[in-house]
Structure formats: structure tokens, C-alpha cells
């Protein structure tokens, strides 16, 4: 009986200790990116094509990476890009941005600057008014300068 009690106490103490340990920072992984993409496309087929990512293959600092996503589309009332979703696979979370477009856009081209914590793949999914899903991707190598503000 005493032995059981001791074991139980040790177990509870151990559990308490474990819950006090700092949780590891969440990190996106290719699986997390796939899950985020699935939220957008559901069970629909995603075809590769029509989506081009213009991003430098190598950037000297991951804090400000210029990215332009272009989707081939007539951008007419009947056939236009409704949304562009961009994902990453190695930042702490998988989302980059979600853009909403329409026939008033004229061109399905969106430019911005993104943060990349590491060399990784970026994926863009375009959703059309006809219910189609098109995808494109790009790989970026991220380097880092020497002589930064803080010692790393």
C-alpha cells in the first residue's frame, strides 16, 4: 500500500513538473501547411498551373522577401480569380496572406513582402469563380548577414 502511494505521489509530482516546463514553440511543418491548404480546398482537386510566384531564389535577409503572385485569368464576370491564398512550410505558422479579388481587379496580380524564418517552399492557391483550384510554388533560400544588432 505504501509503495503504491509513493509511486502515485511521484507520478503526480512528475506530471506537475512536466506541465510547468515551457512548451516548445509551435512550428509549421509541411504537414501543417498541408492541413492549412486542406481547410481552403477541402476535397477538391488542386491543379498545378496558372499560378506563378515571383520571388528571389535567394534572399540576403528573411525579414523582407518581395513576393508577387500572378494568376492567368480573363478576370471577367464569368471567369475570374476570387481569392489567392499563400502558405509557407517552415515559419511558426503556415499562413502568409489571403487576398480577395474580383472582376474589378482587372489583373490577378498581388505583390507584397513576406517574412521567411528559414529556407523553404511557399505555395499559392488560386480559387476561381468557376470553383477551380490552381496552385503554384517556389523555393527560397534565406541567408543572413554577419554583424547584426544582437549577438546570435
Amino acid at each position: 500500500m505504501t509503495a503504491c502511494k509513493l509511486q502515485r505521489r511521484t507520478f503526480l509530482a512528475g506530471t506537475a513538473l512536466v506541465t510547468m516546463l515551457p512548451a516548445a514553440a509551435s512550428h509549421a511543418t509541411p504537414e501543417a501547411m498541408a492541413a492549412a491548404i486542406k481547410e481552403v480546398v477541402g476535397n477538391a482537386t488542386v491543379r498545378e498551373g496558372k499560378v506563378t510566384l515571383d520571388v528571389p531564389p535567394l534572399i540576403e535577409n528573411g525579414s523582407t522577401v518581395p513576393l508577387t503572385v500572378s494568376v492567368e485569368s480573363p478576370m471577367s464576370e464569368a471567369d475570374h480569380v476570387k481569392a489567392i491564398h499563400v502558405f509557407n512550410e517552415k515559419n511558426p505558422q503556415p499562413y502568409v496572406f489571403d487576398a480577395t479579388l474580383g472582376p474589378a481587379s482587372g489583373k490577378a496580380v498581388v505583390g507584397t513582402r513576406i517574412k521567411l524564418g528559414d529556407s523553404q517552399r511557399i505555395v499559392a492557391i488560386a480559387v476561381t469563380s468557376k470553383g477551380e483550384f490552381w496552385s503554384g510554388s517556389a523555393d527560397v533560400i534565406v541567408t543572413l548577414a554577419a554583424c547584426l544588432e544582437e549577438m546570435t
Partner: protein
Amino acid sequence: MANVLINVPKTARRGEVIEIKAMILHPMETGFRPGTSGRIIPRNIIERFTATWNGTEVFSMAMSPAIAANPFVSFFAVARESGTIALRWTGDEGFAVEERVAITVA
């Protein structure tokens, strides 16, 4: 136009597809960075950018912590009528900025 740099052509031909660029001063603190104390600096980002043309939305972007500081956006819109293009940014800590530019479409 305090902390915003906007580039919109002053005039456009009817039906012309024009490029609109906007950049706003904002730290876009991700919420993942530890400060010098070792504690995580709280997230402070712009969550949404919206562009309307005479009140009708022509573009919007939901931003994540993966958007770089001092966020820059460029997008396109069909010039249909003269009027006002309004650009709106909203985000954490009650951040709300609106800037308006006039455009003449002939």
C-alpha cells in the same frame, strides 16, 4: 498622409487596368519573437487591408504575422469612374488607418 506612402495614378482612361501600391509604417510584431527579457513580445500586426473605389470593395488582403514590417501591397483595379479610392488598414491594438486618394477617369 502621415505614415502611409500611396502610389495611384492621378488620371486613367476608362477601362484601363491601373496598379495601386501602398506602404504603411507598422512594426508587424509577429508574437513569436523573444525580447531581451526572454519573454515573448506580444503580437501586434495589421490583420486586414481593404481598398474601395467609390465605396465598392475592389481588393482586400488578410495579413498574417508572415507579412514583413512596414507592409507593402501592390494590386490592380479597373478604372471605371472618377472618384475616391479609399485604403483601410485595421489590426491589433485597435489599429485603424484610412487614407483617401482622388482619381480622374476619362
